[in-house]
């Protein structure tokens, strides 16, 4: 384990800019910032081509993350304090039926959707109540 490279477990989803920087360090990645009207988009790109988009609202909180690339992102790192809720959602998905299908966790406080195949993973997570006015889930990519 590369524990020495992990910063303290700042929350990413629901966290602030420092959590984005923690994610960047953990994933040994570059960071690019795009500021829009409704939100600021931080793009974290790893050397292997994995991309994580972290969406920050005007008050500087991460309300959504989206990912695509050759591996699943480190969920603890990008979901922060929401990771236990994610984990419970995965367990429930698995208990519901045998087989392989996209993941669709839809709870009042957390949405996580994950699709794709090995070496091509796509997904997003967001806090519905934190979406800035005018921002729809379709923009979280």
């Amino acid at each position, binding site marked *: 384990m590369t524990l020495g490279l992990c910063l303290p477990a700042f929350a990413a989803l629901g966290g602030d800019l420092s959590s984005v920087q923690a994610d960047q360090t953990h994933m040994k990645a570059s960071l690019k910032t795009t500021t829009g009207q409704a939100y600021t988009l931080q793009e974290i790109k790893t050397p292997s081509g994995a991309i994580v988009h972290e969406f920050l609202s005007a008050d500087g909180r991460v309300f959504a993350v989206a990912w695509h690339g050759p591996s699943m992102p480190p969920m603890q790192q990008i979901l922060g304090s929401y990771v236990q809720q994610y984990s419970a959602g995965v367990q429930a998905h698995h208990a519901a039926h045998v087989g392989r299908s996209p993941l669709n966790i839809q709870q009042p406080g957390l949405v996580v959707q994950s699709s794709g195949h*090995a070496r091509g993973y796509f997904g997003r997570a967001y806090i519905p109540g934190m979406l800035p006015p005018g921002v729809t889930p379709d923009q979280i990519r």
Partner: protein
Amino acid sequence: MRKLLSLVIVAGLGFLAGCGGSGSSTPVGVPTGGGGGGTGSGNTLPIAVDGGPVTGVIYPDGAFTSVTLCNPGTATCQTIDGILVDTGSFGLRILSSAITLTGLQALTSGSSTLFNCINFVDGSFLWGTAAVADVEMAGEKASSETVQVIADPTTFTIPTECSNNGIDEDNQAGLGANGILGIGPEPVDCGEACDPRFNGGVPPVPSPYYLCSTSCTATSVSISQQVQNPVALFPVDNNGTIVELPTLSGAAATESGSLIFGIGTQTNNQVPATAAIFALDSEDTFSVTYKGMTYNSNNGTPSFIDLGSNGLFFPDATITVCTDVTDFFCPSSLLSLSALNSETSAVTGDTSTVDFSIDNADNLFAAGNGADAAFSTLGGPNVGGGFDYGLPFFYGRNVFTSIDGATVPSGTPPAPWWAY
């Protein structure tokens, strides 16, 4: 042996087999039941949508087969049934608990053993040793290839980087199978991102590979020693596959078909002149247009064909989702739908209209006294994503998958591509 090992470490690229146990637990008998019948011949391996090997549990729309594992270079072999055939992953992964063969060796470096991890999009993961085996399917053989032997460790814990807050499928009930045969459009499970010649010796995060003794460290592994798509290692018929399942309308207890090895290498694997061919984009995906929306990797909604997905999964908020299992659709009546497949960026320029139907999953599962395993009209939501053409797409279509980097027939684009 120690000298050899130190040489290998200096080279920084390789691991040796034969210096440690495979980590297998006490072998148990090969489970019986469903799980694909027959071992085939030539380049044709029988597959069956038969509910899989778990007693009392139907795995809906999963294609199962048997593979033969051998101690490398020997005739000491074991045929294992209940292996899920998957065109959405790469490499052979088998539960240690299904392996009775005792001679398989894990790759090692010094006193550490090489382990492999795969995460699936549904949050599940598989952990196990990277071991070397000869893999025989029908009349084909992949010699000394790296496979994953799935088992939980006993002397350390699985790195959280691998488990990733997901669910461990280290047993038959959890996996719904005795293993997974990944024969998708790539030759290995990681590629350059994990190879020290290309990644500067820095493994990706999360890493698919770890060296473990009492604890684990993420490691790089050369492409030739990564978990390999066995088809790519065949001496012949190694450039891809065809999955053939018969036409199905509705539900059936079982559907039997074939996995054909090679494309354009034998009389039974020629690409028909009428086939639509879709060159894949860099994410191994393509483009689908449905109800006026286009789903591809350009807009973050990639679409793909994946035998290992057990339904047709796509975004359509107008279709009622089942209340008990929200992963499937439960419309009040049969829906007839249509989509248009194309490439993300035109190479062949081919397009193809796909007519399909979605039925009420609750009714499908309940019909046939709950014994049916094959459903042509099973589907579910892929909210926020694109089209995931799972197993039902394959009924009545011979679907070709060529492997990245392989030599393909003249007149076809460079691999990887899908054709049908």
